[in-house]
């Protein structure tokens, strides 16, 4: 009697498990298909065993022309090469031209006053420690083609819509 009861209980459980497995497998099929189609899902696009040729490296934009910012808070882009620039505890190559005292000679844009402020908005004599590592926000650009289309719309365009 007991064993019959247990069997009676097990049957719906097994059915449910089978159904669940079926649903999971079925739901994965479109995901797998899109994984193969979508170029952004993976950069590899080849079997794991195949040693694919690496894409060409982009060339760094080095025209020294300032680019428009997409929004006011955007950190300005670096319009020149920065190969081998040393930014560490000992020295900051960027600041040899962009610091307050260096811009007269270098004629480079001075880093904004926000870089001299500490977390309490007190303006300090030198660059604040939290702003010291330039490449955290400022980056050069390359001539590489974008992998995906950029749909960003800036605020002026948005207001005119």
């Amino acid at each position, binding site marked *: 009697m007991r064993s019959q009861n247990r069997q009676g209980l097990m049957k719906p459980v097994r059915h449910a498990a089978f159904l669940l497995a079926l649903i999971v497998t079925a739901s994965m099929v479109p995901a797998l298909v899109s994984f193969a189609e979508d170029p952004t899902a993976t950069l590899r696009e080849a079997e794991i065993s195949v040693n694919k040729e690496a894409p060409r490296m982009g060339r760094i934009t080095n*025209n*020294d022309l300032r680019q428009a910012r997409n929004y006011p808070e955007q950190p300005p882009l670096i319009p*020149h090469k920065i190969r*081998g620039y*040393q930014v560490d505890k*000992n*020295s900051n190559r960027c600041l040899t031209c962009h610091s307050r005292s260096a811009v007269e*000679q270098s*004629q*480079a844009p001075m880093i904004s006053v926000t870089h001299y402020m500490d977390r309490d908005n007190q303006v300090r004599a030198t660059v604040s420690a939290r702003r010291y590592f330039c490449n955290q926000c400022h980056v050069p650009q390359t001539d590489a083609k974008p992998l995906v289309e950029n749909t960003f719309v800036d605020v002026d365009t948005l207001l005119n819509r």
Partner: protein
Amino acid sequence: MSLFRILKSYWETLTRPSRYFSLAFLTMGGFIAGIIFWGGFNTALEITNTEKFCISCHEMRDNVYAELKSTIHYTNRSGVRATCPDCHVPHNWTDKIARKMQASKEVWGKIFGTISTREKFLEKRFELASHEWERLEANDSLECRNCHDFTYMDFTQQSPRAADHHARLLATGEKTCIDCHKGIAHQLPDMAQKN
């Protein structure tokens, strides 16, 4: 007193004409011996003037040479590269000998392990770098100019920023290469010590 007598007898021998050797033998012998000694000296000197010699010591190989490897003076598109002596030893003979005599202190440093560990090297780095900056400031960046000749610089091929700086500061003689181009082949020491 006896030492004086020995010296005096040598002097008398040297000032007298040769008794057994012909004039031709002495002049030719002197000439050949001169070639051998001078050639030997210069060859030995040139061996110490190679990168292979420099990095045979771990002080150079593990510190400054390791840092050079990722820079444009070691690897670049055209494959023209600078080795240690190209920048650190003057090419002009008299200056080279003067520098080599100075370098005898580096042998002393090697024997007594002045910079035998990374820590000791970093500790002394500012002083060592300062010597090189002073040398290049004093000789108007001569070792840079052995390859980078201002006369043949095409400003139109430079980025606008570089062309402007070179026209404004280098052409006028206000600055020399090393004033702006510090730390291009090796990492910089703590620059706060400079002020």
